[in-house]
């Protein structure tokens, strides 16, 4: 049985800088996988390569045993791969509910003609989308915000809505880019509980995170990047004792 996500030998340079220099790791079905590392370690670049937003110079990315390198980003949600961004990129002029509904785009079959003529199929899909989005907001405890303009929400809530938007797509693998950034302690705890609940529901999670406490509390395995290379990979209790990690990351940040 191969892993859900297999990444090997990724190299990506920007100018003269190697943002990724031979990064490889696997994500097993059902785990919460954390990626940590100091600023500039290559974490977001790694996520961008996996989700097709950046082309690597070398290496391979396989999802469910199939190479997804070179696929346009919009094809990935249908395969079961969804992501969020470090700073939420919602559609500010749409409501929270409409934003979440957008996450289920890959399941929508109606196009312009069916939508414009309100054919029965389009109506059914719209109703199902509305219910699905409402369920996701319920799950996140955000049901009361459904009618609000997404752009009017504070940044922390926007990030949570973006997680909901990704969940609406029913992903098999959810990739999160620093979901706890800017959250206070109680919000971070709520986020941790939510991520565990998402995993319980059968969705594998890979999370880039700065908050070491959160990472150690919820993740099954931690990948540590520094300067574009993997310096440690394993269960949190082992990774936190690795000398290289203490040196580069925990030591470096004081």
């Amino acid at each position, binding site marked *: 049985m191969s892993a859900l996500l297999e990444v090997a030998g990724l190299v990506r340079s920007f100018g003269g800088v190697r943002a990724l220099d031979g990064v490889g790791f696997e994500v097993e079905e059902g785990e919460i996988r954390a990626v940590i590392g100091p600023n500039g370690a290559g974490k977001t670049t790694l996520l961008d390569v996996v989700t097709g937003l950046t082309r690597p110079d070398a290496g391979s990315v396989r999802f469910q045993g199939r190479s997804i390198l070179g696929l346009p980003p919009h094809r990935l949600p249908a395969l079961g791969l969804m992501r969020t961004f470090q700073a939420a990129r919602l*559609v500010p002029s749409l409501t929270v509910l409409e934003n979440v509904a957008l996450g289920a785009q890959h399941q929508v079959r109606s196009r312009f003609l069916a939508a414009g003529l309100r054919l029965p199929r389009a109506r059914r899909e719209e109703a199902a989308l509305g219910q699905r989005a409402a369920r996701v907001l319920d799950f996140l405890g955000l049901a009361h915000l459904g009618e609000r303009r997404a752009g009017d929400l504070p940044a922390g809530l926007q990030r949570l809505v973006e997680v909901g938007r990704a969940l609406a797509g029913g992903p098999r693998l959810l990739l999160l880019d620093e979901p706890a950034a800017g959250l206070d302690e109680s919000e971070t705890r709520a986020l941790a509980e939510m991520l565990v609940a998402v995993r319980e529901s059968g969705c594998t999670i890979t999370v880039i995170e700065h908050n070491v406490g959160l990472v150690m509390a919820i993740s099954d395995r931690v990948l540590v990047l520094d300067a574009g290379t993997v310096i440690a990979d394993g269960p949190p209790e082992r990774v936190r004792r690795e000398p290289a990690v203490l040196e580069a990351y925990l030591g470096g940040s004081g």
Partner: protein
Amino acid sequence: MRAAGAGAVGPRLLARPPARAGLAVAALLALAALPLALPDATDFLVQVGILYLVVMGLDVLTGYAGQVSLGQTAFMAVGGYGAALLSMRLGWPTVLSLPAAAAASALLALVLGVTLLRLRGYFLALATLGLAVIAQGLATSLVGLTGGPSGLVGVPNLGLGPLVLTDPASYYELVLALCLAGALFKRNLVRSQSGRALVAVATDQQAAAVLGVDPGAFKTRALVLSAVYASVAGSVYADYFRFFSPDLIAVTVAFSLVVMLALGGPRSLLGPLLGVVLLQLLPRAGQAVALYEPLIGGIVLVLVVTYFPAGLWGGVRRAWETLARGRR
């Protein structure tokens, strides 16, 4: 809470209160009876309706999908010349020529979409402007086909068998029906997932893509839709005036269409209508105004885009909402 939430995306259009349905029927009858009340204005109303159709389509492309097109006149040209020539040269019934020209416009838009819509922002505006220039150039130079600068004369009136539309009032009813159908289609579309996807593409292409929205495909669909609206408008124009000429699809007209949208209010149903009416009334305000129309249009565009990005209709709507909130 949950039921209310589900309603916002899903069946919110289904549950229209009967009182509003009655109001809609009354408004419809009033609109249909307008030529009886204003017989002298019928010709003006027909022209407004035709342009409203074009700007409505442009709103899907520009207002919702965020792609500025200065080339809608090219599709009006395909609709106008195409339908006219199919009937005049090949003897097609006018009711067939119109949809055939619309299909040709859609095909042209599809080809352009695949190539042009890779261009972003100002480059797309420039490329579509080039399209408008080409359309005007061809219309002027292909004298044998289009009649050249003096235009194509003797286009047959729209009709089916013995039923032929000849007077302004019957064209008014036709244009009214087309505008209502077009507005209904657009309203349904923009409130659907496809409409949300268009707004997502306009806002942030990359973020839209990771949700499964194919930005190129959605922009192309919006361009095709806008082309069909413009094409049908062009065909009706030719059939109504029994005439079509390069002046009607000049580059300045393409520019005016964008001004109408920006002025009236993008991303709305009535904004484009407001913009068309205002800009159509402008030349009637006097000789001096008519002379400086492009200048006034340009200044208005700059002012509106700078100070009222939601257009005049957007401003009216906001004032109304504030008023309604104050009353409560």
